[in-house]
């Protein structure tokens, strides 16, 4: 929790500028501007790579090759697509609310980019290490919902409005388990600062001490970012695309870019909060290596998300809502209750690591193992309950089917012959 030693992306260069004769205030301001530009440009450039990766993986799953014509390995395919979107005619439907219609895509992508400013890339590289980092990230994410609502309403189209309403209802619902899952890392780390959460994982990653919370966070992130099996936000093969139906040209492109970026950002958050963020070997000597570790850790859940998208069928909206309110939320609440109780007992008994050896793996072992065992136990009980429920429902189905067959026989006895 030594957040004092972590400094800004920007502060590293203030001394250099001041030494070369710049006014300190101006140097501060310049460095902030440069930091902002880096953090804004990074996701916008990287998104081209993510889309390429997604198309490649989806293609491989479906036994295709994927983009392979433009540039080496088709890497420039998305640049070509962007150029195409830019020179495409842009249609604003008659009766649309022009200002809101044009602002919606920008707000959508902004709600993703702003998250990148609070992500720790290495021990010393972070846009802004806010004391309320976790809540900031969730709050900025909730603004994205607003963009969808604005897009749907301003298009003056029934499908767009209906799609937006369904999407928003689903998105806000899945925010609840996400916030509940985030409570547990905050509880263990004792801070909401993103840098503090990463540092609290030096001894043991939170995916070990809170696997159920990690799983809930991952699932609700799938829903929040509109990924399969929860991609009802724009079920492109069933609905006519949902809230962004009337959008064309670059505005549509911005919505698409924000969607791809959102998915990666969610997995980036997963890596920061549950997979130890930038922590890895030799980070203390070479801080920039933290960025590499972070990206490597992010790619694991991200590629899993991509494979999920290519393999899993879509759920219905009522299934999606029921899964959230009747399964994820109750489990997340029970998870918070039990983890809080067990952790308090562990702390009272004195098994949790002291502040001096918080980064030591062995010192973290007792607490981590007890929490892991508790989580396993909870998972076991939940699976058993699910199994019993499933069996009951299958039996009921079978009984109903048998009854129907009997009734059919009674109504038309000759039909059997």
């Amino acid at each position, binding site marked *: 929790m030594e957040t004092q030693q972590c400094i800004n992306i920007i502060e590293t260069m203030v001394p250099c500028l001041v030494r070369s004769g710049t006014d300190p205030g101006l140097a501060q301001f310049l460095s902030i501007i440069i930091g902002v530009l880096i953090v804004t440009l990074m996701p916008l450039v990287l998104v081209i790579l993510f889309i390429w990766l997604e198309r490649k993986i989806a293609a491989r799953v479906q036994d295709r090759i994927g983009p392979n014509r433009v540039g080496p390995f088709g890497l420039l395919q998305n640049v070509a697509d962007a150029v195409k979107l830019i020179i495409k005619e842009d249609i604003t439907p008659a009766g649309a609310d022009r200002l809101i219609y044009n602002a919606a895509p920008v707000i959508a992508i902004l709600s993703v980019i702003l998250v990148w400013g609070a992500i720790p890339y290495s021990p010393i590289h972070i846009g802004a290490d806010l004391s309320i980092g976790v809540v900031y990230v969730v709050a900025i994410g909730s603004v994205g919902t*607003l963009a969808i609502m604005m897009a749907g309403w301003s298009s003056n189209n029934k499908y767009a409005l209906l799609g937006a309403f369904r999407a928003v209802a689903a998105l806000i619902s899945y925010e609840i388990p996400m916030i509940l899952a985030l409570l547990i890392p905050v509880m263990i780390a004792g801070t909401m600062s993103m840098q503090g959460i990463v540092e609290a994982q030096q001894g043991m990653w939170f995916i070990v001490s809170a696997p159920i919370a990690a799983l809930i966070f991952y699932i609700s992130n799938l829903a929040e970012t509109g990924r399969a099996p929860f991609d009802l936000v724009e079920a492109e093969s069933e609905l006519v695309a949902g809230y962004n139906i009337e959008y064309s040209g670059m505005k549509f492109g911005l919505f698409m870019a924000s969607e791809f970026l959102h998915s990666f950002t969610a997995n980036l958050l997963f890596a920061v909060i549950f997979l130890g963020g930038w922590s890895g070997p030799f980070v203390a000597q070479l801080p920039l290596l933290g960025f590499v570790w972070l990206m490597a850790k992010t790619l694991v859940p991200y590629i899993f998300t991509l494979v999920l998208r290519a393999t899993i069928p879509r759920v219905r909206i009522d299934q999606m809502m029921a899964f959230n309110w009747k399964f994820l939320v109750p489990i997340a609440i029970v998870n918070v209750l039990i983890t809080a109780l067990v952790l308090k007992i562990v702390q009272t008994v004195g098994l949790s690591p002291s502040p001096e050896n918080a980064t030591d793996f062995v010192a973290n072992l007792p607490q981590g193992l007890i929490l892991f065992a508790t989580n396993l136990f909870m998972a076991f009980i939940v699976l058993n309950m699910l199994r019993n429920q499933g069996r009951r429902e299958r039996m009921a189905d079978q009984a109903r089917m048998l009854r129907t067959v009997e009734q059919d026989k009674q109504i038309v006895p000759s039909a059997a012959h």
Partner: protein
Amino acid sequence: MLELNAQTIVFFVFSLLTLGGALGVVTNRNLIHGAIYLIISLFGGAGLFVLLSAPFLAAVQVLVYIGAIAILIIFAVMLTRSMTQLREVFNGQWWASALVGVLLFTLLIGGVILPVWGNSGTNPNLPVSDLVATTQDLGVALVDGNQYVLPFEVASMLLTAAMIGAIVIAREDD
């Protein structure tokens, strides 16, 4: 007395957003536009919270007011058909609300602003609570038996009651 530094400028920008947004809410005929103006106003409020070194409240403002209540208001507007294009600007009770507004304004000026007018925030005689300095202190204070534990639990009860009420009312409709 009023020095023009970066903080003052930012304060004016956020105040302008807050007041301008509020003005937009009450003068706009389109309810959805009103909701958008409300969001702008609330965003300005969040900025003011940051300036007051209360970042947690700022995040709550964005998460709860912009992310939840604004959405709820838009849901409510869409629930009531043909309310999106209201024609008349004033309704029959405008004078009553104006009266309440003027009363509240006087109260705020007389009770809150006048006593501290001219003090640039460093007056040690001002009643400033040092109990809650950080979000962590807030957490301790909320569940401390000698401080706010009762309001904390009552808030939970209140929210539960609000939800029960909402479900009862909404269920009668359909």
